């Protein structure tokens, strides 16, 4: 039953034949759910099949070369920033001791709470002519107008790299950090015994071992950057996503827009495939369950302070500056805090994000568990397919979601009409359920990636033991895997929660009447070009986002604390035979 193609990264082992009802249910469920999640992307491909008139000669001769080059530059720039910042800070907080390490460990995740479009707005406010920075410069040097001095323009490609880099690096930080922590102390100890110094250890052992995790983090950050429309349109950076947008709206050519989006998608999938293919033969297993205290280097004197600076800088740039600016602007509108509309929006944001996160976790567990039980090309493929929504620009994905959802809605209405004599109208869209669907489609990649990775770290021996002791596959999931993966599940849930909270394009397009979330409230104010009015709701997103982000940081930190680890592993030892 278990196919043995070497493409899946998960451990290979045999299980009972999938003949039980539970397992057939699981198989059916995964096909159904993956199909549901991929439907919007199919809708986009379908839209792309129409005729876009004479669009392509125009695109090829004018925008495409420029848009591709801008997009590649932006991705390279953001990629370098998130890699350098994410990996270096993760290494410092996991492997070194220096003043404030514990605090940085948590605080480095804070920029997660800030949506890209908000950080873009904030930096323009901060750095443009009337902002505080230039005002101080003018006062200091007695300049009169902007022609008297040079100041870097934030609304530029460089500016976009900067803001996106410092708001997206936590993806890399989070995955690199987890990877460094989990690297078997043995591997590192052996290297140290063989005389590797800290630098050599980092380059030759830790970094290659962490490569899959870092790639996952960088990929997520680059997808965000590729699909962003808020910041790039605000900064006038003409990326491919920008062209998709122009083609759709200014030339009323949705077909053409879908075509560009489809080609982008193919491009992204090809990249992901090559990366995956490149490391298909690499396998990293934990050979022992020894998660002893990691070796740590004490950084003394200037080295310690350098580490402090390296860790503080991204927090200041990606979180503190924009938040302080929002705070100062919001304080002028403090009376808005008592607007019931703001609280209603916050409530909507919370329940939508919570339900969407729960649903994402449930679907991810099913897909990843089936892949664990029956590792094959098919189950691996299902997992990848379910993650595809993340690779499509948000605005166009929103339209892609619209068509299947509305079709389904119309089908429901038609069938109740036939059965009971009354139509339900648009149940899914009218109730906000469509939004939850949209969030799951968009962000399933996040929770699936984490949960699939979490399964990969649990040795198959536990499954065997559990099954041979009489548990069913479902029982094993509930009694063995879920308890072991609690921290992974929690962090996946929190990650999804934060992402859903920040989501804008699909929320705008698919929400019911008189219904706002915090993100759409920010958008409403920002579209009247009134930054001041947008500051308070923007700050609310950041504040609401901080709570799950701190929980996220704590979960991932707790998981690996030595004491806990010992306790946990002794519990496991009771279930699993000693190795």
């Amino acid at each position, binding site marked *: 039953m278990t196919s043995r193609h070497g493409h899946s990264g998960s451990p290979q082992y045999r299980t009972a034949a999938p003949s039980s009802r539970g397992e057939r249910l699981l198989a059916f469920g995964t096909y159904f759910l993956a199909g549901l999640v991929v439907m919007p992307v199919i809708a986009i491909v379908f839209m792309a099949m129409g005729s876009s008139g004479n669009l392509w000669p125009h695109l090829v001769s004018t925008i495409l070369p420029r848009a591709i080059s801008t997009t590649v530059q932006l991705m390279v720039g953001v990629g370098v920033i998130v890699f350098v910042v994410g990996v270096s800070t993760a290494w410092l907080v996991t492997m070194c001791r220096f003043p404030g390490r514990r605090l940085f460990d948590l605080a480095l995740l804070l920029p997660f709470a800030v949506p890209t479009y908000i950080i873009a707005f904030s930096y323009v406010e901060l750095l443009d002519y009337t902002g505080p920075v230039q005002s101080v410069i003018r006062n200091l040097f007695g300049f009169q107008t902007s022609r008297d001095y040079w100041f870097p323009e934030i609304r530029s490609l460089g500016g976009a790299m900067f803001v996106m880099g410092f708001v997206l690096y936590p993806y890399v930080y989070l995955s690199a950090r987890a990877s460094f922590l989990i690297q078997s102390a043995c591997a590192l100890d052996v290297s140290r015994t063989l005389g590797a110094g800290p630098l050599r250890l980092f380059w030759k052992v830790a970094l290659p071992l962490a490569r899959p995790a870092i790639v996952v983090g960088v990929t997520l950050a680059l997808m965000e950057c590729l699909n962003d429309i808020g910041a790039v349109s605000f900064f006038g950076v003409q990326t491919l996503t920008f062209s998709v947008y122009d083609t759709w709206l200014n030339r009323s050519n949705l077909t053409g827009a879908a075509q560009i989006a489809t080609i982008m998608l193919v491009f992204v999938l090809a990249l992901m495939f090559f990366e995956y293919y490149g490391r298909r033969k690499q396998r990293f297993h934990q050979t022992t369950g020894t998660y002893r205290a990691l070796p740590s280097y004490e950084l003394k004197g200037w080295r310690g302070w350098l580490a402090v600076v390296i860790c503080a800088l991204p927090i200041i740039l990606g979180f503190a500056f924009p938040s302080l600016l929002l705070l100062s602007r919001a304080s002028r509108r403090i009376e808005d805090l008592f607007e019931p509309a703001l609280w209603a929006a916050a409530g909507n944001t919370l329940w939508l994000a919570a339900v969407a996160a729960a649903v994402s976790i449930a679907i991810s567990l099913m897909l990843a568990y089936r892949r664990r039980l029956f590792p094959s090309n098919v189950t691996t493929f299902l997992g990848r397919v379910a993650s595809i929504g993340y690779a499509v620009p948000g605005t166009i994905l929103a339209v892609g979601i619209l068509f299947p959802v509305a079709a389904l809605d*119309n089908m429901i209405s038609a069938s109740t009409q036939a059965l009971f004599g009354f139509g339900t109208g648009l149940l899914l869209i009218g109730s906000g359920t469509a939004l939850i669907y949209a969030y799951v489609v968009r962000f399933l990649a996040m929770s699936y990636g984490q949960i699939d990775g979490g399964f990969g770290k649990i040795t198959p021996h536990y499954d065997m033991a559990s099954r041979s002791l009489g548990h069913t596959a479902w029982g094993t999931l509930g009694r063995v895997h879920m308890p072991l993966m609690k921290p992974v599940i929690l962090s996946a849930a929190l990650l999804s929660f934060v992402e859903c909270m920040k989501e804008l394009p699909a929320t705008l397009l698919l929400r019911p009447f008189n219904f706002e979330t915090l993100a759409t409230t920010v958008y409403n104010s920002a579209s009247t070009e009134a930054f001041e009015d947008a500051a308070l709701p923007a700050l609310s997103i950041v504040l609401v986002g901080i709570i799950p982000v701190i929980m996220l940081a704590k979960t991932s930190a707790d998981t690996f604390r030595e004491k806990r680890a010992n306790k946990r592993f002794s519990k496991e030892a009771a279930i699993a035979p000693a190795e």
Partner: protein
Amino acid sequence: MKLLLKGFGLTAVGFALGTTALVASAQAEEEVNIYSYRMPELIKPLLDAFTEKTGVTANLVYASDGLGERMQAEGANSPADVLLSVDIGRLQSAKDLGVSQPLENEVINNNIPENLRDPEGHWFGLTTRARVIYASKDRVSQDTITYEELADPKWKGRLCTRSGQHVYSIGLFASMIAHKGEAETEKWMEGVRDNLARRPTGGDRDQVKSIYSGECDIALGNTYYMGKMQTNEKDPEQKEWADSVRIIFPNTEDRGTHVNISGMILAKHAPNKENAIKLMEFLASDEAQSIYAAENFEYPVEAGIEPSELVASWGDFKADDISLAEIAALRAKASEMADVVSFDDGPAS
């Protein structure tokens, strides 16, 4: 497993809640459902006045893009009755998507001039806004200007504007094509691009700010932003920016200043058609037109309704009376040309 069940449970609860909300709203007596490309802030006073007058509750979804597609996807079950839009382009594409229905209504047709509504009755203009020149009070002395003149090298390094792909810019470019033809417009767009002080970015208010900062001397912008800034009590620094510029209406000597419209369509499958028409008649009425003028600093379309005092203080102008249907048809071309001349890359040198 527990978590799994919890997830499904929560979805079910969410679904049930939503359904009850839906049923409850379906029972409400009189209502009209609006999909709006116009910001809620700008239409709220109008809808409040409408509800007060008629007792009909107005429900609203605002989004900047895609509402036409949403109506198309929703099909016959679409709850939308009326679509409100900020520019001619989106009105026209709603018509092209087949989500509108023609309306022959005496009240509306009497109040809205012919060149500001669709010949087939699918869309109606409600207000006009002129695309004008903001000029520095200190550094620009001339009192008249033409759009053509913006390509004159004397403005080199002195002109600012927002993105050439923004709907307002596209509207202006399309009107140039309508009047001057493609070849001349392309040359003109290159000239304008080369006069830019910086790459086109930001919104219309940002252009005023750029004049205030000394980065440029003239800029393109819509009229009502000036009103919004001049009366901004919450952010008095915007009054200061606005105070550094004055408005010049281009081409008043010849064809007139380019105007765009905000407007409305009646949804093809409007479930509350009667109320929808009530709302549309109201929006075209004296009362609503005066509110537009007073609160939003736009120009009413109805003859005889005066603009607000502040708007009037910017001076009289002659509006280009070319049919907006013609401009709408040239938008795609205008957008392509903005790409061809790399307008958004800024000056060539």
